[in-house]
């Protein structure tokens, strides 16, 4: 079984993110990058499926991202991925979800696959669409926000989070699955595995190797960021003093009379 995991590298959640000089992207100086947490769930699930199949599977990680993203792929290899593919070209810098889906489609098609695992959402752009767009482009079914996954021969049984409950869906392979928190607990790579991963080959097809070029990527983009700005900062307000009863009473009145939220 050929499993492909699509993973993005994103700023650490603690990072102070500021706007770059162009006013449309972020200033990356000093930022630590991590594998998108949901993509870590996706990778871990790929590795577990392989283990459950007694090793009769390959797990290949694909990442579209600037040179720094190689680190995410090395981490993935150290966790146990069999291979890693790094796609980059400067023309991809402003690529939107539509263009990324095009690039990933080319990459996974070249690799060949039975199962594509993505994260439910990338926590930087929070757009939650690349995996599903990819499924649509490939004409494949998908299961979104999956918290439990089982491979049964040529089909999948997935539990997915829906509003107010869990939906159990069955879908034939090949398919796209997006990982939700709760699917698993990702493993930590061991130090020797990290060392070994440093020396591993990483596939670098380049846009040309995928049958694409800068023009095709630009043509595929459907959105444009006009500007990026810090969110308005919140200011601390007022501390309500007094014994619990008294403070609660004052607060209740403030919420009604001053804040007008009740």
């Amino acid at each position, binding site marked *: 079984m050929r499993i492909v995991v699509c993973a993005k590298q994103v700023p650490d959640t603690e990072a102070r*993110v500021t706007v770059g000089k162009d006013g449309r992207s972020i200033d990356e100086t000093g930022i630590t990058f991590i594998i998108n947490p949901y993509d870590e769930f996706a990778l871990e699930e790929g590795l577990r499926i392989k283990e459950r199949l007694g090793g009769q599977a390959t797990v290949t990680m694909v990442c579209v991202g600037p040179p720094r993203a190689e680190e995410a792929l090395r981490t993935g290899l150290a966790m146990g991925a069999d291979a890693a593919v790094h796609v980059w070209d400067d023309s991809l810098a402003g690529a939107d979800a539509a263009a990324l889906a095009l690039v990933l489609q080319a990459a996974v098609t070249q690799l060949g696959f039975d199962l594509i695992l993505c994260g439910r959402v990338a926590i930087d752009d929070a757009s939650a669409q690349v995996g599903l767009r990819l499924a649509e482009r490939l004409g494949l079914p998908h299961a979104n926000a999956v918290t439990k996954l089982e491979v049964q021969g040529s089909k999948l049984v997935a539990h997915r989070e829906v509003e107010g409950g869990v939906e159990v869906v069955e879908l034939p392979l090949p398919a796209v699955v997006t990982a939700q928190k709760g699917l698993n607990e990702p493993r930590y790579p061991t130090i020797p595995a990290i060392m070994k991963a440093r020396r591993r080959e990483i596939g670098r097809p380049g846009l040309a190797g995928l049958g694409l070029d800068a023009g095709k990527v630009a043509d595929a983009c459907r959105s444009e960021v006009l500007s990026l700005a810090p969110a308005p900062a919140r200011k601390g307000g007022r*501390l309500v003093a007094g014994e619990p009863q008294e403070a*609660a009473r004052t607060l209740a009145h403030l919420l009604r009379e001053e804040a007008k939220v*009740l």
Partner: protein
Amino acid sequence: MAGIFVYAETKEGEFRKATGEILSRCRGVADATGEPLVAVVVGPAPEDAPRRLAPFGADLVLHVEGPGLEVYTSQGYAWAVTSCLAGRQPAALFFGNTPLARDLAPRVAERMDAALHADCTGLAWEDGRFVFTRPLYGGKLLARAVSRPGHPVLATFRPNSLGVAEVAATSPAYERVQVEVPAGSVASVVKETIRQVAGRVSLQEAEIIVSGGRGVGGPEGFRVIEELADVLGAAVGASRAAVDAGWISYDHQVGQTGKAVSPNLYIACGISGAIQHLAGMSSARCIVAINKDPDAYIFKVADYGIVGDLFQVVPALTAELREMLVRA
């Protein structure tokens, strides 16, 4: 261009909150451009859909139904929406940012060869185009974005963030469209839906959220949180610390790796205010913090705070509000 379309999602026979918010916010643009404002309902719908959507200014309710649309499937619904809109040259198609829309809209966007601006908190009409505001990087930054011209404009909007605009009621026309989802085009089969506790307000639509963190100390600690929530008709939220400890399920988690919410009032109890938590709730209109540590970061972002033991303060607040709301 022939229409601003709003996907009118229903839950338990009621239209979702965001449906009315988006429709009413688009009324002005519809008037300015002469585009009809159309609510699209797919699958089972309330009989009196036009009457229910009239207060929000819809011109037309388009009801798409037929075999294969009795229950939601992403492929079936994506096919239904796009084939129904195909001949109508939609200018825009907007959704509320609900779990269903997040499953449906990306496929629709791909089929319509369009951008999808996801989880927007703002909408403006400037120089003859829609401009969307989206929180990025866990709400640390706000982007203003547009679609490239020549394609329909798609977006999902976070419930509560647009609010309902005051518009004159309309009497929408009602058009029923019969379709049949082509055999073999839906590959996944829903085997079963396991319902969890029903009846509670959805976290993302709630106007008031009461959240508990590590400070509630255990699953029983959430009792005081729930009691306050019940009095307020609020939803219950949680920090990741409380979720990871197994005190409450993940669908309650607020934050960068949970849900992003924009309620009118967010009451954080026993939550320190970690940056990843703030990512999910700092767009709330009013934040209240109850925490025993006067130095907790949450006080730096809260509009009102009480320093104290939540097990004393929260029940006192519950009692106070119960009395106040009964009197009202």
